[in-house]
């Protein structure tokens, strides 16, 4: 049954890539929402900033946003998908394989949420299980072997919390990714395209460069979770969202991300072309870096060090 579902979604995704981006892309592009988001972004200093940040969280979760596979199909050529973690199962929440960026073969990995209700159920709403992280790691190790750069698209509310996921070591799977990614000898670029939920997102974002879409969010805990733990009231999520500093601008000012990608033309050909150009340029620079893993170590080493007072 799951095979059948998979075939269908795969076919759909293919159609999607080959059809000229035109109509399909327009669907993705936010007609009014985008303008609204922009207004919110500009009004963030406003007294009502709380609400605006939370609006952006909702925007990041919008099911109409392009998902991981949309990016893969539109930015790269000849995507060949690979499956399975060789340990337990194949996790549909993580899609990965090889593709060409211009003429360069790269390994691409995406957390996929799906668009329709059926797809979303099949993809487990983009919440990977341990086997998803292990598949991603397997593909990264393969990339290292063949000297291919790794590009990850991250869009998850968090690692799946379920009984099976705990039994198969969700924590261990994430930990192993973080540890192995820290010394991977090929460049890694991660792009947060929607939600960046905690450890589940970080497990694909311990990279040389981390970019965020303008309306993507990146947070240690969901605003709802934070509000219910701290204030025992999940309806205060808007205040929590503002306090958690989870927008792309916050990420940049904290030094957690390098680049904010504008969403003005999200889903259009120009949008994907722009990302392709940026990726190509950045990979050129990274592949010349002889101190790649040292620089990656330093990138994370300095984060949070400024928040420490030494007496």
């Amino acid at each position, binding site marked *: 049954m799951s095979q059948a579902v998979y075939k269908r979604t795969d076919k759909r995704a293919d159609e999607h890539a080959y059809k000229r981006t035109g109509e399909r892309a327009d669907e993705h592009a936010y007609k009014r929402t985008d303008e609204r988001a922009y207004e919110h972004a500009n009004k963030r200093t406003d007294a009502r900033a709380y609400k605006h940040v939370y609006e952006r969280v909702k925007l990041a979760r919008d099911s109409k946003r392009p998902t991981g596979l949309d990016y893969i199909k539109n930015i790269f050529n000849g995507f060949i998908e690979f499956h399975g973690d060789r340990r337990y199962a194949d996790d549909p929440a993580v899609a990965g394989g090889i593709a060409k960026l211009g003429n360069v073969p790269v390994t691409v990995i995406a957390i996929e949420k799906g668009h329709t209700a059926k797809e979303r159920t099949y993809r487990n709403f983009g919440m990977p299980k341990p086997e998803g992280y292990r598949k991603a790691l397997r593909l990264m190790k393969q990339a290292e072997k063949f000297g291919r750069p790794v590009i990850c698209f991250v869009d998850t509310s968090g*690692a799946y*919390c*379920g*009984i099976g*996921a*705990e*039994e*198969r*070591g*969700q*924590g*261990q799977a*994430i*930990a*192993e990714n*973080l*540890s*192995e990614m*820290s*010394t991977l000898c090929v460049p890694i670029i991660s792009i947060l395209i929607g939600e960046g939920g*905690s*450890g589940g997102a*970080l*497990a694909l974002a*311990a990279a040389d460069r981390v970019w965020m879409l303008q309306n993507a969010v*990146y*947070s*240690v*805990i969901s605003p709802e*979770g*934070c509000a219910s*733990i*701290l204030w025992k009231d999940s309806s205060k999520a808007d*205040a929590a969202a503002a*306090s*958690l*500093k*989870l927008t792309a601008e*916050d*990420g940049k000012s*904290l030094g*957690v991300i390098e680049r904010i990608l504008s969403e003005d033309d999200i889903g259009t050909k120009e949008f994907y072309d722009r990302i392709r150009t940026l990726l190509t340029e950045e990979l050129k620079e990274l592949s010349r870096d002889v101190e790649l893993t040292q620089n*990656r*170590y330093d990138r*994370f*080493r300095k*984060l*949070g*060090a*400024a*928040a*420490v*007072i*030494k*007496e």
Partner: protein
Amino acid sequence: MALLNFLKPKNKLEEGGRTSAPVQRDSGEPEKKCPNCHREIPLSRLWANDLVCPCGYHFRMKARQRIQMITDRGSFRELYSNMKAENPLNFPGYDRKIETVRAASSEKEAVVCGTGMVGGQKCCLFVMEPYFMMGSMGSVVGEKITALFEYAVQYRLPVIGFTVSGGARMQEGLLSLMQMAKTSAAVKRHSDAGLLYIAVLTDPTTGGVTASFAMEADIILAEPGATVGFAGARVIEQTTKKVLPKGFQTAEFVLEHGFIDSIIPRLNQKKYLAELLKMHSGRAMV
């Protein structure tokens, strides 16, 4: 028959607990109630027994007390004791909270790091503090642990770490999340240098700490009955709408599923760790 199930022991600890000898007590001495066997245990007896109830239940233990228990007398030298957190995101209420916790726990942060001798073997130690915001990992915890692993690489020392944590500290937002990547990278460097890292998971080890340095050790041990997991049990129950199996996310559960090496009761830990350090101290046969 099913009605009588409540009389049966709920876990392995209880199986032992119901039959052990009655506790001797002086009148008027302060007592602590054991949540496992429900007996009132005199504090003096608990302290003499490293906070382990006669039934086998392990109470939570302050970091300093644990260091005293594990290291040889007077050998512990603390490192990075001057580091303390500020409020990097200006999170509402965090300043006040941290002041209160600091006063109550008399610790500056949720981890104590240093070097010491365990059974005559020198090693680096980090011990997390359950009474400091439940050992949550903020920038300082990440920084201290990273620095300790770097120190251990520099002086070629093994590391023993006792983890207690509710996860990443949400008041420090993204910065606390980044500590997972930072500590993981430091542990990996230590490992690549051919050095030993032993983690002892104590109650509770969850969230971002499980998903980083707790699960990256060469040898992972746990205390009996400790909660070990990634997502919170309540969250899982709410998300999946399923009743969680008995003993879910305990040390015994992760042992059964192959994620830790062994469960070591507190009273045997020092001897066990010393033995492990000793076996890794010489050169490998050539």
